[in-house]
């Protein structure tokens, strides 16, 4: 057996999904199915005002007529939207960390996220979203002192309706695409962040998502607003327990940066990818978009995508303000039968807007991964610039990696650069590492982490360590 097929076999045998366990928490669950009644049920459960219910119903009406996006290079059987629950709440709803179900805390322990320590030592405020309802929020008071609002989106609907009304749907309209439309109709929870003018958020804000109910779709909605001159770094990480049936996850994230504001959004995505035969796993259909509304504003997306059976995700930037900047740093790892179609869109509207795209794709097993990117320069984007670099690394010879860059430029002064490479882990590299004492698995993990370095180094320190560990886990398996 050549080294390459040995590795392919080794990664194909990846059954080591470390986050595969289920927490037993009694839940308040909506009956299966999707109709107007269910949407009213969700809205009523959350004591929502009339305008929120109207937004949901309008989205639902539109969703019924909307076709699914077809252009991505992914395959799955038709989704039976009626065969899922659209609301599940752990109970009782708690106010403080001390009241949190010890089992939930245990879950976080197992995931290597000792929330208490994490929050206290690392200075991370954790707005925990467990299933669909926030059960604990920490550090809120500290943040409130400087005028920062960090709460669940449901709380924001109640306590800050003027902000939610103004911004929700302003970057991702409810009719943007079928998945975003569904989210707009049935979203249950997510985070809301508002950083007032001139405030630099003193800590990394973080949310851990976790799907925990049988057949519960997960529809988070996150809204982050950085007012003039504000700065915030937000971390999103998720793991899901082992599941037999496909679960759909359709989140929407909207970011708004005003003049001179900066938002850094980092994701580590580790949803259950399915087993080595391609059975089960999460369908991750996410719409993430940031609007650089103000001059000199900046939005930076960093993502490490290792999980999900199917990933459909294009965190994008609309560069409206003059001199605004957008960045996209991505690592996408697929193994076994995973499929990923991910990338970004950079829409240059303002003068001298700049964007930078660094995408690293790693495919192993029988997986298939596509980088799909659009750089669009509108007529008014005088002197706009883009740099795009897409690198693919193939492990074994049964996987696929594709790069699909689209460029549309309506302004001749724009400067666009694009570089792309495809490579394999060479036998020379593996043998060199092994000769120095690394096992084959350790060698693969080291080489892959090296390949991803430019992206990894954009992650906040404590997240980078976890992400590197995740790279090793997602490529490890029993040797032989």
């Amino acid at each position: 057996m050549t080294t390459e097929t040995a590795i392919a076999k080794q990664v194909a045998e990846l059954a080591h999904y470390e986050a595969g366990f289920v927490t037993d928490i009694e839940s308040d669950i909506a009956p299966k199915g999707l109709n107007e009644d269910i949407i009213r049920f969700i809205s009523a459960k959350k004591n929502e005002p009339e305008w929120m219910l109207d937004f949901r119903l309008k989205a639902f009406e539109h969703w019924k007529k909307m076709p699914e996006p077809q252009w991505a290079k992914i395959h799955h059987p038709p989704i039976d939207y009626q065969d899922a629950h659209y609301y599940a709440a752990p109970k009782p709803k708690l106010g403080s960390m001390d009241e949190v179900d010890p089992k939930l805390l245990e879950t976080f322990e197992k995931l290597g996220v000792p929330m208490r320590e994490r929050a206290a030592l690392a200075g991370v405020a954790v707005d925990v979203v467990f299933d669909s309802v926030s059960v604990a929020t920490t550090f809120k008071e500290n943040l409130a002192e400087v005028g920062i609002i960090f709460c669940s989106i449901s709380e924001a609907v109640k306590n800050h309706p003027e902000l939610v009304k103004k911004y929700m749907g302003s970057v991702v309209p409810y009719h943007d695409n079928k998945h975003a439309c569904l989210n707009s109709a049935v979203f249950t929870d997510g985070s809301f962040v508002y950083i007032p003018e001139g405030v630099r958020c003193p800590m990394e804000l973080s949310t851990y998502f976790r799907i925990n109910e049988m057949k519960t779709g997960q529809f988070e909605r996150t809204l982050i607003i950085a007012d003039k001159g504000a700065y915030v770094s937000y971390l999103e990480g998720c793991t899901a327990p082992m599941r037999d049936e496909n679960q759909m996850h359709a989140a929407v994230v909207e970011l708004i940066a005003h003049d001179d504001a900066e938002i850094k959004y980092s994701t580590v995505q580790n949803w259950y990818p399915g087993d080595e035969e391609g059975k089960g796993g999460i369908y991750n259909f996410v719409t993430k978009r940031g609007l650089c509304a103000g001059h000199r504003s900046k939005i930076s997306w960093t993502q490490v995508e290792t999980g999900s059976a199917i990933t459909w995700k294009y965190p994008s930037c609309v560069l409206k303000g003059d001199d605004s900047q957008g960045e996209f740093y991505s690592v996408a790892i697929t193994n076994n039968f995973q499929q990923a179609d991910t990338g970004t869109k950079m829409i240059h509207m303002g003068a001298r807007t700049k964007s930078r795209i660094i995408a690293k794709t790693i495919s192993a097993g029988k997986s298939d991964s596509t980088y799909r990117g659009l750089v669009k320069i509108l007529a008014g984007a005088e002197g706009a610039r883009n740099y795009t670099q897409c690198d693919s690394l193939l492990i074994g010879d049964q996987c696929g990696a594709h790069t699909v860059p689209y460029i549309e430029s309506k302004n001749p002064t724009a400067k666009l650069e694009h570089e792309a490479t495809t490579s394999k882990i060479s036998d020379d590299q593996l043998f060199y590492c092994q000769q120095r004492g690394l096992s084959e698995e350790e060698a693969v993990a080291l080489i892959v982490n090296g390949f991803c370095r430019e992206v990894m180094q954009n992650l906040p320190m404590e997240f980078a360590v976890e992400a590197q560990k995740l790279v090793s886990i997602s490529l490890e398996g029993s040797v032989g």
Partner: protein
Amino acid sequence: MLVIKNLTAEVDGKQILNGVDLTINDGEVHAIMGPNGAGKSTLSYVLAGRDGYEVTGGTATLDGVDILDMDPNERAAAGLFLAFQYPVEIPGVQMTNFLKTALNSQRKQRGESELEALDFLKLLKTKQKELGIADEMLKRPVNVGFSGGEKKRNEVLQIAMLQPKMAILDETDSGLDIDALKIVADGVNRMRGAGRSFLVITHYQRLLDYIVPDVVHVLAKGKIVKSGTAELAKELEKTGYADVA
């Protein structure tokens, strides 16, 4: 230390080693010379356990332990080191991180505790100074953009860090100017002594002026055809391999 008996091996179904016999005692430095294509690199790969280098007969033991059944990383942990003729680039992996990962992987396999970051850096600092290696080089990715001399010095640094019992140097002198050659030879000479043996593979006698071997062998057509003292290397320099090979 290293005992090789009647070792035969093939690559791609083609027999390359035709019965190699070689015994290197503790603390000795042996040199293997021979024409291009004689099987020198093949011997070093077979000993290190590279995929595709199939042993078809004979034995090889390190301190009495059979190494031919071990995985390459197990042989490394057992104390076998191979300085590559062409050191390999690993983009994005910083030298310091590479050295630490390698050292701790070996220690783990030997049942030793892993070195703490601080102790590791102290050790690295010492070895680095001895070999005149700048901090800057260790911040770069493994072998990426290294000059020929830097690559070879980096191999010697790894010997110094990993402290193998048996180090094989495959044409470490190729592509080196005389100053770089001296630095490399100095490094090796400093590590000579009880507990560590060397097998120096070279095409030219030049290196052996600086690393004076205890025994010199000539390998030709996959067999050791002649052995002698350091003088043998000098003779070969004059006569070439035509007579022996």
